[in-house]
């Protein structure tokens, strides 16, 4: 389903919320940056599969 947000939530403002959420959120925060760091090594195919997966949500 498409997002109905009319505001630009701004990437930084979305990501920092993970830290605000506490321990479970901080894990998400580090996972996000870890995935960003390792993305170039995981190869194109993996990244495409991942994007397709999240699109289906």
């Amino acid at each position, binding site marked *: 389903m498409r997002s109905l947000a009319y505001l*630009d939530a701004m990437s930084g403002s979305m990501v920092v919320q993970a830290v605000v959420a506490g321990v*479970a959120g901080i894990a998400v*925060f580090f996972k996000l940056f870890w995935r*960003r760091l390792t993305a170039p090594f995981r190869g194109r195919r993996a990244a495409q599969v991942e994007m397709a997966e999240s699109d289906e*949500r």
Partner: protein
Amino acid sequence: MPFAVEPGSFRDPAGSVFYLDGRVLRGFDPTGWADFEALAATRFWQRATERGELVKTTAVELATLPEATTKLTGIAGVVEHERIPVVSYPFEWTFSMLRAAALCHLDLLLAGLAEGFTMKDGYAYNLQFRGARPVFIDVGSFTRVQPGEPWAGYRQFCQTMLYPLLLQAHRGVRFQPFLRGAVQGITPQDARGLLRGAGRRAGRRAGVLKHVVLHQAIDARMSGARASDTRKELAAAGFSAELQAATVKAIRKLVAKLSWSEAGKPSTWSDYQRTSTYTDAERERKEAFVERSLAAAAPLGICADLGGNDGTYARIAQRHASYVVTADADAVTVDRLWQRLAAEGNERILPLVVDLTDPSPGLGWRGTERGPLFERLRPDAVLALALVHHLAISGNVPLPALVDWWHGLGGRLVVEFVDPKDPMADRLLANKPAGMHGDYRREVFERLLEQRFEVLDREELPSGTRMLYHAVPR
């Protein structure tokens, strides 16, 4: 058929507010209408409406509306809202009022999240006050939560509610000029500059590290990222609706513990009723004059108590008017008055912080998105007690301009003139060069007043230095 589109309601394409014959209506497009129908079926919606936290809203049959209104941008459904007697804006609220509004916003979001709804925004302008009670008015803000998405309104909440509160709580800096300066509030960049160092002092750091320092740092680092990609990345990393609720709960906990230390200290005007030069007999005579003037005109619609101080006369006015707005420049006094009214559950006296020599102008897009104070406040009666000498002597406002201003407000007037010989006026005159306010005399004031108003009643207080007038515009 008086029909007008609300100039402040255009940012969200899913719905917008318009007025028809004095009714407040909101039209939704098909997506907005689907959200509304789902929302109206929830338990939290019913509960919050009953408690008065959410503006009363009822669906309207499209067939009952004139065609011109339903043609607006493909409307799929229309609702009618309860009218808020006088619209006020966050830069006219005190610290405690903004905090109460923020808590109301967060509580509704939490209640919504528990039933699968989030909010598209986090705007201080989503709230109004009905007397001393905050009420959430932007029903179009609710939308169904998407898995993996954080709160889209978090940044806006920071800019228009959290940062202003942090600034005043941690720095003692009044937030009102900042909110009035920009309808989108204080940016993370500016908040970081304003709160620099506030994180280092023990006990003064609540919220600064995460919401200001880290927020700004990540924001700067990710300035080139696309929001749609970031949403997908967050979802892939495991961000969930539960985490969104945890975020909002953490923000709520932070906001609830913020306090403004000045609120407990005496200010210029906080002890006015106790320390003023009135004797008891004089105060009783003045109260009786105000009472009988307003009673003669009752029932009144809206009464504006200008320079209302601790609300003594607003409470008298409340007996004869359906709604009272009390405006005063002293934020400490207004904050305390709000706290008392809020504790009583008062929904008929709205206290605002206003410098009457510099009232709120029109702001936002084309200067009409947020209207000027005296367009939103059109009183049927005006109280101007112990006010003229401040505006005329300290503020240098010429007496003819003052009388003209009251005349323009359109309502009846109960005004006090404090003679130059009175100790309070004398104290103000002593700050100015001798002879500068030579026209500040009772005869001059009376002549000007009688030119624009018909004076129905007048009384000299026992001191002989204070006059009261009850007048209606000519």
